[in-house]
Each structure stands twice: as structure tokens, then as C-alpha cells.
């Protein structure tokens, strides 16, 4: 067969290296480079990226130097110490605990859970959406019914009830509980895109080229929706910070002795705290706002650059 091809083509093995080099010099940049270029061109995006990465590193490393149990000890002497007094540069709460230290540890806990939740729920949602969208028929039908049912459940209530039932839980189990309820949005988005991608002829071409379903789903279709996946994951990271802090705020997130940005904001529930002792809760709220805005902005920039690379595609 090879002779057959050789006979009809002027290209021989001797030309291989030279042609390969020629081709390489004409090669096009990858998508990752296009995204990075977009960041370099956009100053606010760089600042946002710097804030997010820098802050995560700071709390991860900083929290290593803080003895959490000791930090959480009640010290009535420092009751609601104002910022700058008694060595508390962000003040202390009603139990005399350092706000600054709680912020660092709390931020680490909140971000850690948000990252875990984002990874688990996105991976699950992406797989669910891809599989459900690719296999139409009974598999899709069944998966859609499960999806419908999950959508009907009142999420916040269900999480609170489950947290109440389970007596001993920690950050890991909490992340898993959240994950049960937060994959639907991603799966819906991915499914609808997968449906339209599956219609395209390159999927049919892969089938006739002998590629198996698993490879078609994850190596043909998934790269084509990768920009959607990246954007969705970034945005759900911002959203997931809100999920954990929100429930901790209500008192059903992390256990009382484990600080979180949410439990800090919960200090605002006390009418005295909210006005007089603003430092007990406002810094945590400000932190969440800055963090969420930055992450969300990064998501927007990635979306824009993904659009741009796609636009480049059709303009030809």
C-alpha cells in the first residue's frame, strides 16, 4: 500500500526533514498563548490576576504560621478591641480574637473549599454534560430526568438539612455535600454545547475514521468547548466562594471553631457589631467583594480572548 502511495506522490522519505521544518516555521500559535497575550494587553486584567494569585499564595502560606486553636481561644480582656489597639491591627471580636488572624485562616478555608468545590463540581458537571449531550437516546433521557429532579430540589435547604443530620463533618465532607448540588449549571451549559458540536461533521468524520466514543468525547469535542469550560470554571469559582461563605454566614457551613469569611461576616448579625464594631465583619465582606470581582474579571477576559480566537477563525 505504501508503494502505491509513493508511486503517486513526489514526496519521498528524503524530503521529510526539510518539509517538516518548513511546516514548523509556518505553524500557528496555540490558544493558551492567545489568552496570555490578551492578559498582557489588558492592565486591569493583569492587576486582577495578580490580586487573586498573590492573595491565594499569601493566605496559604500565612495561615501556616498561625496556631488556629490558640487563635480561637476566648480572651475577654480584648473584647471588641479597636483596630490598632493591643497589637490587633484589625481589632478583635467580642471574644477577643484577632480579626486579622481569623481573616487569613478564614480566607484560606473559604478559598480552599471553593477550589475543591469548583474542581469536583466542574469535573462532574463537564463529564455529565458531555456524556448526556453526546449519547442522545435513552442515556440522555435518563440523565436529563436526574438533572430535572436535582433542579427541583431547594439547594440551600437541602444542604442545611444534610449538614444538620451529619453530626461530624469537616471541610472535606462539607465540600462533597456542596458538590452534590452545584454541578447542574455546568452540566446544562456543557450539554447544550455538546449537542450542537455532536451535530457537526467532524464528529461523523471521527466516527468513520474508527475513533471510539470515549476519544471522540474527550479528545475531539472537549477541546472545542474548552474555552467555554475555562470561562465557566472561572466564573463558578467566584460563585462558589459565595456558596460556602453564605452558608457559613447562616451558621451551617464550617463548624463554629473553624473560621471562615462567612462566619466573620456573621458578626454583622449583632446590631451592635454592625454599626459600632464594624471591623469585626466589614474587612471580611470587603475581601470577598474584591476577590469575587477579580476572579470574575479574569473570567471575562478569558471569554473575550476565546471569542477573539474564534472570530479569527471565521474571518478567514
Amino acid at each position, binding site marked *: *500500500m*505504501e508503494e*502505491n*502511495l*509513493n508511486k*503517486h*506522490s*513526489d*514526496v519521498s*522519505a528524503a*524530503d*521529510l526533514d526539510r*518539509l*517538516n521544518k*518548513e*511546516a*514548523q*516555521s*509556518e*505553524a*500557528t500559535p496555540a*490558544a493558551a498563548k492567545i489568552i496570555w497575550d490578551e492578559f498582557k494587553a489588558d492592565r486591569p486584567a493583569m492587576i486582577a490576576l495578580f490580586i487573586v494569585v498573590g492573595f491565594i499564595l499569601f493566605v496559604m502560606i500565612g495561615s501556616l504560621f498561625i496556631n488556629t486553636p490558640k487563635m480561637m481561644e476566648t480572651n475577654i480582656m480584648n473584647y471588641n478591641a479597636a483596630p490598632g489597639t493591643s497589637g490587633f491591627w484589625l481589632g478583635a471580636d467580642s471574644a477577643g480574637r484577632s480579626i486579622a488572624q481569623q481573616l487569613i485562616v478564614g480566607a484560606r478555608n473559604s478559598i480552599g473549599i471553593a477550589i475543591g468545590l469548583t474542581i469536583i463540581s466542574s469535573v462532574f458537571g463537564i463529564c455529565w454534560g458531555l456524556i448526556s449531550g453526546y449519547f442522545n437516546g435513552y442515556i440522555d*433521557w435518563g440523565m436529563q430526568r436526574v438533572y430535572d429532579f436535582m433542579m427541583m430540589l431547594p439547594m440551600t435547604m437541602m444542604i442545611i438539612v444534610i449538614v444538620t443530620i451529619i453530626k461530624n463533618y469537616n471541610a472535606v465532607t462539607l465540600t462533597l455535600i456542596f458538590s452534590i448540588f452545584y454541578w447542574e449549571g455546568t452540566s446544562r451549559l456543557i450539554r447544550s454545547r455538546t449537542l450542537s458540536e455532536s451535530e*457537526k*461533521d*467532524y464528529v*461523523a*468524520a*471521527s*466516527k*468513520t*475514521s*474508527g*475513533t471510539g466514543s470515549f476519544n471522540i468525547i474527550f479528545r*475531539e469535542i472537549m*477541546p*472545542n468547548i*474548552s474555552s467555554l469550560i475555562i470561562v465557566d470554571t472561572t466564573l463558578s469559582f467566584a460563585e462558589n466562594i459565595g456558596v460556602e461563605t453564605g452558608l457559613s454566614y447562616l451558621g451551617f457551613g464550617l463548624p463554629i471553631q473553624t473560621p471562615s469569611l462567612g462566619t466573620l461576616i456573621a458578626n454583622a448579625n449583632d446590631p451592635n457589631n454592625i454599626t459600632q464594631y464594624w471591623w469585626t465583619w466589614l474587612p471580611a465582606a470587603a475581601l470577598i467583594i474584591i476577590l469575587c470581582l477579580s476572579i470574575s474579571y479574569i473570567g471575562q477576559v478569558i471569554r473575550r480572548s476565546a471569542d477573539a480566537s474564534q472570530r*479569527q*477563525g*471565521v474571518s*478567514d
Partner: protein
Amino acid sequence: MSLIEIKNLEVHYPIRSGFWNRVTDSVKAVDGISFNIEAGETYGLVGESGSGKSTTGKSVVGLEKVTSGSIMYQGKDITKKKNREALDYNHDVQMIFQDSLSSLNPRKRIEDIIAEPLRNFEHLSKDEEKLRVLQLLDIVGLDADALYKYPHQFSGGQRQRIGVARAVATNPKLIIADEPVSALDLSVQAQVLNFMKKIQREFGISYLFISHDLGVVRHMCNNIAIMNRGRLVEIGTRDDIYNHPIHIYTKRLLAAIPETNVNSRAEHRASRLAVEEIYQKQQDKYYDKDGLAYPLVPISPTHSVALPQDVAQEIIKQEGEVQA
């Protein structure tokens, strides 16, 4: 023995309704068709939109779930997935798609696109594989610098040639070409058709050429089948179909092709309107009570038409009289 034998092929799409999602009705996209493709020939499958010609093509290449009937290749019925796998069927039967942009994965480089069937069916070393891809590019008239580019960096005609290169990569025996040039400009269409013919001459490939463009089909095909609402209405050689059409549907299609001869446009129009009038008036003669074509009956060794035997003979006689 023919290369491929399609027998009583039916593809029905179920319509589900009601609470239990039961099948209550079905769309008969392909409704019992039979034809054979010989080695080395181009077989034309012609029809209007919704006639089921694309569904037929997809069934032959194994992309469509067949309701009933058989497609025999090397003595095995390849409508069954098990047989397709046992034969490495798609190593021998490949496909060229209509929309060149959508048929090439936009996130893959040309090298990976053309090498995909090679990687699945023939296990070559890296260098062997690269050489094969370069040779294939050469065969369809593209330079080596295409190797690491993405599909969107090519024009429509170039992309369609990349599609051809992928289809011939495994040296197949049959290629299903589903409207391969209908999205292309005239001059580019000529280029792609030339490459298809050249490859056929050199490798002895057969084509199932699916198209609605009778001009292109006449240029490409030796044998032609005309499809109408899921059934075949007429099959025959190029000469049978273009010069001695029997079924009114075939005549109507032929009459509707616009002609580039400006001088005879009035006559052409008059004859088209005459055919149209017969088509409207004699529906019951050419179609059964459900408005579908009759089973094919042979009227010569190469030529069959979907009419009851007696009606077919009568029409042939009438035609003879008119000509005499």
C-alpha cells in the same frame, strides 16, 4: 460480485409521543432501496432535499442506525456493528462531507486531522506517519506548510481537498461523497472534482457520489440512481438516465436544470412546462395511492424504473411513437 450490495435498505426515524415516550409513528427517510456499487466506478445518487439520499450515504458508511435491510460487503452484512468492527470496515469505506469547515475539527492541526484514520487503522511509526501525511497533501496539491496549520487558515476549496486527503489516507475501496462540491464556487468545484477523478484513476477507488446537481453528476458518474421520498424511482447508466428517462420524476428533474444555451431558452422553458404539466396531471399513474414510487422493474439490462411492468412498457412504446 459487486463491491457493495445494498438490499431493501430502510431507515425510519421513530416519532415518539405520549407520556411513555412510545413510538407512535415514523418518518421513512429511506424506504426500501436496493442497488449495487461496482469496484472502480462512480455511482451517482441524485435527489432533492429530504429525498433520503444523505441518509442512504450515512447508512453505507455506518453512521446511521439501519431499521431493516442489508448492506453486504465482502460477504458480511455491515449494518451490524459487530461485522463492521470485525472487518475494520471504515478502513475500506470512507466519507467526504459537504461542509468542509464543519467536517474538520477546528482545534486540530491538519497533520492530526489527516493522520486520524491512519492512527486508528494502521499503526505506523512517527516518521512513517508524517511521510504519509505529506504524500497525501502532495496528492491533493497542497504544500507541506499546511501540516501545522488549522482548518480555518484555508479556503473552502483547500479545506475540501484536505477532506479528500483524509478520506484516501487508508487507501479505501469506496468513498461516500455527500454533496462534496455543492458549497463551493464554480472554479473551486472544478478543482475538487478533478482531484477526485485523478485519485480514482490512480487508486481504483469507487465513489458513491451524492448530489442534487445533475450537471456535476453527469460529469462524474457512470451509473446513477434517482431518489424520491425515500425510494428509488429510476436507476441506469448515464446514457439511460440523461437520454432515455422513463419516470416522470426523472424527466422533471432533468427539465429543471438550467441550461447555459441562451439561444434555446424559450424551447427549453416550453418543454419544462410541458413536463411539469404531465407531472401534475399523471400523479396516480407514476405513484401509488400513498404518493410513493412503485418498486423498480427492469426494462433493459442496465435500466430499471419504478413503475408497474405494463405501465413501463406502455410509456416506452409511446416514446417510441413520438420519436418515430
